[in-house]
């Protein structure tokens, strides 16, 4: 279970998020909200990318105290990821695989499923935004995280890739991996329980 306790995030005097208690059990969680409401900020906090006040835990593993162990349990992908343009997709996949201890088999399957073999050896600087997004999704699924955090996963990927992503979400969900995502459209995954909806509004997050 991913739990949030007395979380507060502000930039200067501008309060972005204030969450007293919130728990994500298991399954799919769809976070909605207007632009600028704090959805991406929340995912960045849960992904260990930005600092905050309060506590976030997965089971008994604290984000602030067990910094490395916690990060092994989550995988986060930005809405518009940026990677060094001179690295190849392959370089990043190798790095992620080694750090997240992904198997060679898993790695090959993901490359094949997202159909990125044709460009993965090229420098990322030559990729379109859709290609970068596909690469970032491959990276998100690598290893054995408990929670995969996807910020606007459907943005910029082509329509052929959407069913592939949904199919992978189902496969990983069946294996016990949980997903928290922000999106302007729902994940309609056949054969999977509908996602639990949350809304970020006026600095608060609540289940709908």
């Amino acid at each position, binding site marked *: 279970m991913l739990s949030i306790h007395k979380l507060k995030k502000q930039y200067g005097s501008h309060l972005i998020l204030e969450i007293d208690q919130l728990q994500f059990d298991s399954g799919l969680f769809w976070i909605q909200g207007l632009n600028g409401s704090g959805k991406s900020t929340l995912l960045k906090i849960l*992904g260990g990318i930005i*600092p905050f006040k309060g506590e976030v835990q997965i089971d008994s593993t604290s984000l602030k105290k067990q*910094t490395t162990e916690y990060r092994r349990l989550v995988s986060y992908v*930005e809405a518009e990821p*940026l990677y*060094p343009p001179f690295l190849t997709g392959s370089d990043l996949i190798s790095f992620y695989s080694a750090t997240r201890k992904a198997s060679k088999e898993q790695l090959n399957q993901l490359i094949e499923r997202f159909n990125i073999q044709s460009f993965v050896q090229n420098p990322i600087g030559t990729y379109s935004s859709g290609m970068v997004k596909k690469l970032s999704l491959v990276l998100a699924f690598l290893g054995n995280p408990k929670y995969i955090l996807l910020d606007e996963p459907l943005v910029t990927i082509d329509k052929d890739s959407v069913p592939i992503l949904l199919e992978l979400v189902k496969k990983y969900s069946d294996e016990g991996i949980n997903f928290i995502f922000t999106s302007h459209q729902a994940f309609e995954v056949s054969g999977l329980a509908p996602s639990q909806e949350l809304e970020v509004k006026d600095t608060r997050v609540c289940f709908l």
Partner: protein
Amino acid sequence: MLPVSKVLTRVIVKKFYERNAGLFFFIFYLMFGIVEPNQIFGYHQSLIYGTLSSTVFLLVVMGVWCLYAIKYLRFILVEFDQPQNKFLLELSKLSPSKLFWSILLTVTLVYEPVLIYSTFIVFLGFAAHQYWPTIAVIVFHSTILISTSFLLARRLNLPHEKTIFSFFPTVRWPWPKPVPIFYISQLVNQLPTVLFFTKAFSVFAIYGFMQIPLDHYEPRVALLGLLIGLMSHSVIIFELRKFEETYLRFLRGMPISLPERFLKMALVYSVLLLPEIGMLALRGVHILDLTGAVIFATGYLTLIHCKLFQSEFNMDKHTTWTLGLFLISFILVLFKIYLIETVLMWGLAYFWLKRDYYGYEVSG
């Protein structure tokens, strides 16, 4: 003054002095405020004679001037890239000579504080028949002014060129890249000019210091040369931090422990220091002293990097801090307390990383 120069003066020169008013005030106070008014002339005369009669001090002073040149060069390049200054690209339509002279005038104006003081150095140098060091000062300033004007004119002519010179071929690493290679690749592929000039300056600083004739082996001479070279790395460190904040944000979310992050960062700088290590070894520095120098230098650069894990980091603060660390280190090396400094630098670098790495978020 030509209309073009007027525009450049308003957009670049005025802003440069406004932005650095605090630094200039501080330097002015150091130079003129701590001495009794009736002793100022004698004090500076002694300072200038000391500089001209000692190769070591002349190199130190040139190192400081060089840092100032890097500072204004960096400032102007950043200003050229500002959206509100995009109209300056129109200057590329001028004839090459007109553009060059306009930029040379701009650069001369921002370099003016150094030139004014150097005028006294030249005057006193010739009066004291110190011809060679005086000529060296003139050549040094001419080279700085001409080379930086040339680089800036080229940037205006080729705004989309990532690298001003292609001294290095594109290097492809054939194996999976570990994190330190990300940083090295960034320098080699995106900032080859900065890398080349920094390393060349650093290696020549060591070479210059090691030329000083001594009747016995003295490792501090090597260390002082190395220190001048380390100071010149401030731009590289700043660029690597910017690179981290732009392209390596994902690293923060990766399950990598702080000691591992720290060691990887130190590894980046120890690899960067290979040319300096090579020069020290070639100049006959003993193996123990060489090992000590490598640990000292890596700790020095890692410390500066760790200092930049802050919400707001800017070049001005960074340069001031780098200069401060250099001055402290210079004194500690002179007084042979660099072993203690080495331990302190490593300890402080790790302390800052542990305290700040997960706790800051770059504003804006």
